């Protein structure tokens, strides 16, 4: 069966990254800007009486917050600035690709591209102001399939987000799809 998954890629299944730590601790400003950007009018995010009457603590951050907090695009001060070097029409996607852990960074064959297909997130508790969030990613499974336009791989990655005490905040079960891109004839057999 034709495949886009090389033996080297297949061997990576089961590997986990080193913990990647958020650049900043969670701040009130981070939460305020998130809540405004998602157009959330709930008084839970600002009214002390409402928060106090709930079973949640003050300074809680919205559920998916940890996934953005540890992103590669959060540049640490003192690191090189990729934006400064951009030309007018240059693409810009990620702040610091050096944060990619080789244990789970898949190098697809020439002509094969991967894209994010979806995810399922389990929520256990909120991150809070003052938390230092970390993530460990594990390459759980690669399914090899035949699509309409040829072979493809469905890649399942679990990401476990924790606070500084090791408490699990959320777990993201992410799915990526890799397939040969139009116009490229080469690829793994």
């Amino acid at each position, binding site marked *: 069966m034709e495949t886009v998954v090389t033996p080297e890629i297949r061997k990576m299944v089961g590997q986990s990254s080193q913990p990647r730590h958020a650049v900043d601790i969670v701040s009130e400003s981070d939460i305020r800007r998130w809540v405004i950007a998602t157009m959330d009018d709930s008084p839970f995010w600002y009214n002390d009486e409402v928060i106090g009457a709930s079973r949640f603590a003050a300074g809680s951050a919205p559920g998916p917050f940890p996934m953005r907090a540890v992103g590669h695009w959060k540049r640490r001060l003192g690191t090189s600035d990729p934006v400064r070097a951009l030309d007018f029409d240059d693409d810009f996607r990620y702040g610091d690709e050096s944060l990619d852990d080789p244990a789970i960074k898949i190098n697809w064959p020439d002509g094969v591209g991967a894209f994010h297909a979806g995810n399922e997130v389990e*929520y256990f508790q909120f991150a809070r102001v003052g938390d230092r969030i970390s993530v460990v990613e594990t390459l759980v499974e690669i399914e090899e399939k035949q699509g309409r336009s040829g072979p493809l791989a469905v890649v399942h990655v679990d990401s476990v987000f924790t606070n500084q005490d090791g408490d699990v905040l959320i777990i993201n079960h992410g799915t990526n799809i890799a397939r040969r891109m139009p116009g490229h004839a080469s690829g793994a057999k």
Partner: protein
Amino acid sequence: MPEFYEDVAVGDALPEVVQKLTIPVMQRWVASSETLRRDHYDAKFAIEHDGLPNAVMSGSFSQAYIWQLLFNWAGLNGWVLKAAQKNARMVHPGTTITFSGTVTGKYEADGLGYVELEIGLRGDDGAVAVPGSATIVLPLRGGRQVPYPFTVGQGSDARAAR
């Protein structure tokens, strides 16, 4: 917004939320989250460089937006245990997005009520661009409080016990 598990029936529709997706909405999200991919806020770049019809709504925005709608529906006595989504179609600025949800199932386990939902964001043409599903935990009337924090495996155990 349901107060207790018993207030929910299979087939119930969540209140729809309608929002115009504009470049300022998209820019504010990428600035807040620092997800600076140019095709998420720069229409000229998306069209001329990426060959797209327009800038594209970030999947992380739809995830954050959907979560807050679910959280507000669940209320402060409930908990959004799980939310899944697929980025099935691109959504561009100029689209009016509508969030909707329907209760597809419910069950009790370990003294708590679990509500399963089909959710989605659809565009002006009525097609669902971001389909998904969610599980919300609610207290039973006269029952115990929904635990917080939820512990890892608690929700999975409940699903397995069905």
